[in-house]
């Protein structure tokens, strides 16, 4: 990259080693020349230090008996006490089960749907119709979880919700979707699908747009029908996108959508609905067991980190580009 600065030095072109040899004078000149850049970067760098790195340091509280008035520096150490308590508690396995089950359900029922929808949209020949459908299905993505859960509540309630009215008219019975724990996971997954399925198609549609049209024409010459074209041309063309997204999904396996679940949790479905994140909130901020819940949070973050790195390693093993 050719750069030509007003001071004529063009120090940006030098390798770091060369810049090092040029000595302190050159360094000072460079710092002076880029003073505005440093000044501009300052607020952002401070932001990341204060709001991202200080909390990471704050995780030491998981190994302390944290007292808010003493702070991270002076609270007494507690070693692994909180971790031992957490792993020894029956709640651990409940949380583990709930989190993993939700993740598996999402993977099985949610993950394939944007691909299917994108393939269907891709088969549409009329551009206007395609755009119209896309506009509609993107909308829920922009709405908050509170609104989504609110709408589902309004539609499903046994006290006059349309869906229950319809079910009642057809079968003479009502279904307590919102109260019965048995419906919890179904509700969570269907709400996720309703909210995000349309948005999820964007990336696949982009991949599909890159497919060479000549392939289809050649296939048609050979007598391939639409299904064969789908199977032999379209699907292979988006394979790597599917693999990458699947791996990303595996990387964030434990993130089951905290706000969403938090909103759906009621005292009746806590047994099936409580996940690591909501447990951290409940123990930490409503019951003030700071160190204990920080330990739970640290456990979750650490497992998350391992999953992301593992998934990325896997991606590279599969010959895909990987994410990092």
């Amino acid at each position: 990259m050719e750069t030509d600065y007003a001071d004529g030095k063009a120090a940006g072109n030098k390798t770091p080693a060369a810049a090092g040899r040029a000595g302190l004078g050159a360094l000072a000149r460079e710092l002076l020349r880029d003073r505005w850049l440093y000044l501009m970067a300052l607020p952002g760098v401070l932001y990341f230090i204060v709001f991202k790195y200080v909390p990471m340091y704050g995780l030491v509280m998981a190994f302390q008996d944290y007292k808010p008035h003493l702070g991270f520096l002076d609270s007494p150490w507690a070693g692994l006490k909180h971790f031992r308590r957490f792993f020894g508690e029956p709640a651990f396995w409940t949380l583990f089960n709930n989190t993993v089950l939700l993740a598996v359900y999402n993977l099985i029922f949610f993950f394939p749907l944007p691909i299917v929808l994108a393939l269907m949209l891709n088969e549409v020949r009329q551009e206007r119709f395609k755009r119209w459908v896309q506009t509609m299905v993107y909308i829920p993505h922009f709405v908050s979880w509170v609104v989504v859960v609110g709408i589902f509540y309004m539609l499903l309630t046994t006290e006059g919700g349309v869906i229950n009215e319809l079910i009642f008219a057809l079968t003479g019975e009502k279904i307590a979707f919102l109260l019965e724990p048995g419906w919890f996971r179904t509700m969570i997954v269907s709400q996720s699908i309703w909210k995000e399925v349309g948005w999820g198609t964007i990336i696949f549609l982009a991949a599909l747009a890159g497919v060479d049209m000549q392939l289809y024409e050649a296939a048609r010459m050979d007598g391939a029908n639409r299904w064969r074209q789908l199977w032999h041309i379209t699907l292979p063309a988006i394979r790597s996108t599917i693999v990458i997204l699947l791996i990303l999904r595996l990387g964030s396996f434990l993130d089951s959508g905290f706000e969403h679940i938090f909103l759906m949790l009621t005292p009746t479905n806590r047994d099936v609905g409580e996940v690591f994140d909501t447990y951290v909130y409940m123990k930490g901020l409503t019951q003030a067991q700071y160190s204990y819940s920080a330990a739970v949070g640290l456990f979750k973050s650490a497992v998350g980190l391992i999953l992301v790195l593992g998934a990325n390693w896997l991606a590279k093993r599969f010959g895909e580009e990987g994410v990092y």
Partner: protein
Amino acid sequence: MIQDRTFGNRLFDTVNAAVLILVALCTVLPFVYVLAVSFTDPHEVAKGGMILFPTKFSLAAYEYIFSTDTLVKSLGVSIYVTVVGTFINLLFTSLLAYPLAKPHFRGRQVILLGVLFTMLFSGGMIPSYFVVKELGMTNTLWSLMIPSAISAFNLIVLRNFFQQIPDGLEDSAKIDGCSDLDILFRIVLPLSLPAMATFGLFYAVAHWNTFFSAILYINDHNKWPVQVLLREIVILAQSRIGETSFEESLIQPLTIRMAVIVFATVPILLVYPFLQKHFAKGVLLGSVKG
């Protein structure tokens, strides 16, 4: 493109279109229903039988909402947080993205790695809560704006976008005596309007929909954004139905709750058509490796 007019193909197209219409209706009808109920006479709704369109038009729900200052106040909070918060987001993000896009900026690799790492690992809810608290931000609207000032993901995408701007433009501005700050505001940002519109939309949506940080950091009911109020009125009230304390919400039930949902949704739907042409591009930009 050659059109095959065989029966099999026509059947395929018809079924495909029918299913897509069904999917589109499934996403839109709930919104239409909510809107319709909010404009219907409460007694009509209580009688039941209203499926999709108002049987008896009424503004009662909206009149009620505006007669209490709770919702008006929280709408004000949400608008303020969205406008000021998005401005802060765009300013902070572009201020950091620009230096990171300059190959000769020392420390760029370190900062980038530092930012990437925050996407992989975080201190989590409890330590973050204490940081915000120690800074004295709890119970102020700053707590809804400053701790989310930069999204690492948006930052990296914007940096990549800045890198694509030809150096020549910036160099000639330098010769004319512009500082880097001038260049960012007078040349780079005006050239990046589509990107700024996309990120502005994403940040604004996030602010308008913000809910959990308000639950965490704000106890003062007067400073609740609209989503928190919505949860109180729609979700918590629903799970408390039958309890005596919520008799009042049972008298005018559905219509008012629906009207609040409308308020929490409409602003997003208003900006959506204007920005739609940009965001698909923005998302694709984002999917390119950081």
